[in-house]
């Protein structure tokens, strides 16, 4: 309040004029009501907020039809410990990016890390893809948004109190009907602290939900793969505790040139469980020794409906 106004009120405090005067006085604008010493505190709080916001989830970069951002699961790096960083891609409606095996066409998203000395990046952990089909050509990829998680190992010899700059050179192909190839350079800076890091709460559910979509190797379900002239037969042995029924299983191969992606995949019952019959690619001449890929069950594999992707990596055996 201005000194003059204060003085006036003090004079008439008990009189009727006080009430009249106070009624006519408009409340002071907020910047006048805050005492001066509170300004630096507020501005400090604001800048800390912005710093935190930027530090743990670098501003998204927009390339054509895709927003990209690096997001750390934790707020600091502990020397000698691993932590996870995700590449978050948000595609415009109807545009998609690709899985590690893009299918008949396309290009998988590629991340090249440029990390400080001693940091070791892992490989991209791919959530199971969606199947896109158009005019008889099939692709595997993602629409909407996708979180591509990478585990990074921090060296022991980094000093608490310093900052680490993690850079990623990212390339992707995004397609709707036409395709656009893009490259972005993303950076995230993280403080090094010699203690258990705090979780970046804002993105915790993204990490959790994405991890449910990663394909896992099962100890209960066994798969065997056989190949004949026209087909690949994936035998799925059911664990004894499984009381349900498998339906609509899809096989997504990691390697190209093995299966005909537009061919139907037929699930049949067998003595030990099921056989998924998949058509061979007409181009498949040189075959790998092992069949690697993801078996997707929309209803899950008996434990949780949400864990739908089973990883298989089995010898490919000739049946003639």
């Amino acid at each position: 309040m201005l000194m003059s106004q204060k003085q006036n009120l003090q004079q008439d405090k008990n009189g009727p004029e006080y009430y009249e005067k106070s009624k006519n006085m408009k409340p002071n604008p907020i910047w006048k009501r805050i005492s001066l010493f509170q300004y630096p505190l507020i501005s400090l709080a604001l800048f800390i907020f912005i710093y935190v916001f930027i530090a743990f989830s670098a501003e998204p970069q927009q390339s054509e039809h895709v927003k990209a951002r690096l997001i750390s699961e934790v707020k600091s790096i502990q020397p000698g410990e691993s932590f996870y960083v995700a590449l978050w891609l948000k595609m415009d409606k109807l545009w998609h990016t690709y899985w590690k095996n893009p299918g008949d066409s396309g290009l998988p998203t590629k991340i090249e890390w440029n990390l400080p000395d001693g940091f070791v990046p892992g490989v991209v952990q791919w959530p199971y893809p969606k199947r896109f089909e158009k005019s008889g050509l099939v692709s595997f990829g993602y629409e909407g948004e996708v979180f591509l998680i990478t585990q990074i190992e921090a060296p022991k010899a980094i000093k608490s109190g310093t900052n680490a700059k993690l850079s990623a050179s990212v390339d992707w192909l995004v397609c709707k009907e036409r395709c656009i190839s893009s490259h972005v350079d993303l950076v995230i800076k993280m403080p090094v602290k010699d203690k258990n890091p705090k979780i970046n709460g804002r993105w915790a559910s993204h990490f959790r939900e994405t991890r449910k979509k990663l394909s896992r190797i099962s100890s209960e379900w066994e798969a065997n793969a056989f190949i004949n002239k026209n087909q690949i037969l994936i035998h799925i042995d059911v664990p004894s505790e499984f009381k349900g029924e498998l339906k609509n299983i899809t096989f997504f191969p990691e390697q190209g040139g093995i299966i005909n992606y537009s061919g139907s995949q037929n699930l049949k019952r067998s003595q030990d469980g099921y056989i998924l019959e998949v058509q061979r690619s007409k181009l498949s001449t040189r075959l790998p020794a092992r069949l690697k890929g993801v078996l997707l069950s929309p209803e899950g594999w008996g434990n949780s409906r949400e864990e739908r992707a089973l990883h298989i990596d089995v010898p490919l055996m000739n049946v003639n």
Partner: protein
Amino acid sequence: MKRVIFLTLSVLAGFFLVLAPLARAAEAQVDKPAPNFTLPDTNGKSHSLSDYKGKIVVLEWLNHDCPFVKKLYNSGHMQKLQKTYGKKGVVWFSIISSMPGKQGYCTPEQANELIKQKKAAPAALLLDPDGKVGKLYGAKTTPHMYIITSDGVLVYNGAIDDIRSTKVEDIAKAKNYVQIGLDEVMAGKEVSTKTSVPYGCSVKYK
């Protein structure tokens, strides 16, 4: 009457069980005769594969807006292959199977303009907007490459090289299957890599 019905049904069954699968086999398979086709070029002239018996023929599926094709044309690499092997008597056809309105589709005039602009040197650019020839050959991507010997046998079906990428730097690092295959055919040798997984943008069929 029953016999007539039974006979008709048997004939139909026979047709579908025996002959229909053969129709699929008309798709381009290596070590088999390359399926014949007829397409107009950008100057209205008609070309049939059978017209070129006695010549080695290369088929290159094309879409100038596709990043994988841009890599090969912006670097001059595709044009260099067309010129080098054109001089050696190879008949190189670029084929566009994009449906009208979809990426890569060109009118003959636009296509001629692109040939000039890119300094391309195919023997002709063939227009397949119905996608019939693309489907006949099972062309999946742009680029998707085929080599046909002078006897009309398909000896290569697949990618242009072994590095799936849109980066120009990767061209020099890659093994170019078309170059290797053509050199082998011209030397009278067996083609060492007859198929590979084609990479590129999908052909924009109907």
